[in-house]
């Protein structure tokens, strides 16, 4: 089972920093994530929420018990001298790959759990703080199953539209929004759903101006969308057939990045490469077609450009080969790279421009980005 997680955020109107912070990481087969809402808005809230989220994530990553870690944070978070309320609130999530999840919330709105189109109300244990009588945290132990969804949000979502709607959007309004969306798009991704929630919350506000920082985190358990990218010729040419068969028998989506690689697979699998009339180029080599393969592109130049697109603040998806490759990456959950280790002597010709990268390096950069920025599961196999 794969856990698809994503977060969308909107800053408070007229502020230039997010006051909520979302951090997550896949580590040792687990998924850990923290959503923290800092007191106030702007830079102050940003610092408070980032500190809380970063500390909690470090605690969880180091293998601390989530309840213990959250208790320590709850008991030690300072109180604002002016407003006499805590500096930040948080929700922490720790899921293992078998679906067991432990969730702790302190101060944030209660999360929403949806299974088969119904909202479930999970049981929780409440632990009061030993140092601050007004603080308490809710602890949930749940078992996630394929198809389950969890929605976490900051109070900017549930309190959006105060004044426009009598009591704001509230939890009930949010549930209605999500349910209606799920009726029309039952398999919506976490990325789209969290963006949708944030947009709805913002549009509920008067003049569409967010009065607080808005964040929504969506978790969706589903069968993983696997993909395989074959790039570079295998080091030992006699193994070409073995790897070509592995590629052929892979059940998910497939891409080939590399002209020579495409030629090898075409030869071994007896599938012709078709080169259609080029449409958009943008100075990049064109895309080719092979039956049974979702995407065939050139190697190094396309991968280098795709890496730049992934590194941009918002991933670039356009018509050229690199844009299509980025789209291919983002539509997968588990991305497997098969990287041929054979060197193309021609690429080391001193007459070539220096922009040319070494394949292993560029794959290393891309897989790091996909893992850390886009929270994908990535494996790299050198062949």
């Amino acid at each position, binding site marked *: 089972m794969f856990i698809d997680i994503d977060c969308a955020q909107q800053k408070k109107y007229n502020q230039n920093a997010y006051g909520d912070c979302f951090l997550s990481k896949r580590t040792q087969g687990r998924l850990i994530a923290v959503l923290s809402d800092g007191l106030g808005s702007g830079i102050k809230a940003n610092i408070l929420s980032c500190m809380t989220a970063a500390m909690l994530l470090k605690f969880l990553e180091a293998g601390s018990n989530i309840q213990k870690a959250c208790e320590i944070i709850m008991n030690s978070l300072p109180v604002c001298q002016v407003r006499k309320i805590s500096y930040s609130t948080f929700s922490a999530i720790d899921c293992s790959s078998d679906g067991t999840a432990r969730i702790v919330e302190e101060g944030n709105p209660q999360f929403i759990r949806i299974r088969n189109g119904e909202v479930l109300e999970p049981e929780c244990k409440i632990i009061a703080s030993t140092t601050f009588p007004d603080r308490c945290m809710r602890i949930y132990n749940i078992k996630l199953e394929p198809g389950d969804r969890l929605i976490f949000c900051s109070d900017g979502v549930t309190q959006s539209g105060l004044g426009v709607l009598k009591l704001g959007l509230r939890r009930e309004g949010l549930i209605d929004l999500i349910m209606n969306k799920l009726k029309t798009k039952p398999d919506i991704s976490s990325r789209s759903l969290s963006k949708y929630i944030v947009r709805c919350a913002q549009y509920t506000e008067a003049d569409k101006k967010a009065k607080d920082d808005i964040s929504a985190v969506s978790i969706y358990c589903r069968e993983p969308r696997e993909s395989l990218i074959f790039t570079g010729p295998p080091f030992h040419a006699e193994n070409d057939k073995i790897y070509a068969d592995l590629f052929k028998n892979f059940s998910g989506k497939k891409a080939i990045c590399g002209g020579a690689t*495409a030629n090898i697979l075409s030869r071994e699998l007896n599938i012709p490469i078709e*080169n259609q009339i080029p449409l958009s180029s943008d100075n990049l080599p064109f895309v080719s077609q092979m039956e049974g393969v979702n995407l065939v592109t*050139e190697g190094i130049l396309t991968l280098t450009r795709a890496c730049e697109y992934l590194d941009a603040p918002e991933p670039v998806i356009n018509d050229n080969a690199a844009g299509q490759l980025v789209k291919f990456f983002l539509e997968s959950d588990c991305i497997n790279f098969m990287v041929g280790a054979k060197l193309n002597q*021609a690429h080391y010709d001193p007459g070539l421009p220096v922009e040319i990268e070494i394949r292993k390096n560029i794959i290393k950069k891309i897989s790091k980005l996909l893992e850390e920025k886009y929270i994908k599961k990535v494996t790299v196999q050198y062949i």
Partner: protein
Amino acid sequence: MNNPPKIEVRICNGTSCCLMGASRLMKLFSIIRRRFGCKADVLTAACLGQCWRENNKPPHALVGDEIIYNATVEKVIENLESKL
């Protein structure tokens, strides 16, 4: 009467060729279609596999079954005309 088979022109789309100016050869798409529309076809190729050999300066193009090294628009047209 049957028309003779069209001559196929392929422009290599591999890494070395693209770096060394294959994009300049893309003009061939419009030129060949306009001038030799019924006698020649022009396509790209994933990689013509010539970069593995020494002393073959990219970019490469294939006219019929002849490889053209260090290809330019003029060289390809000249070669194509000699074959027609």
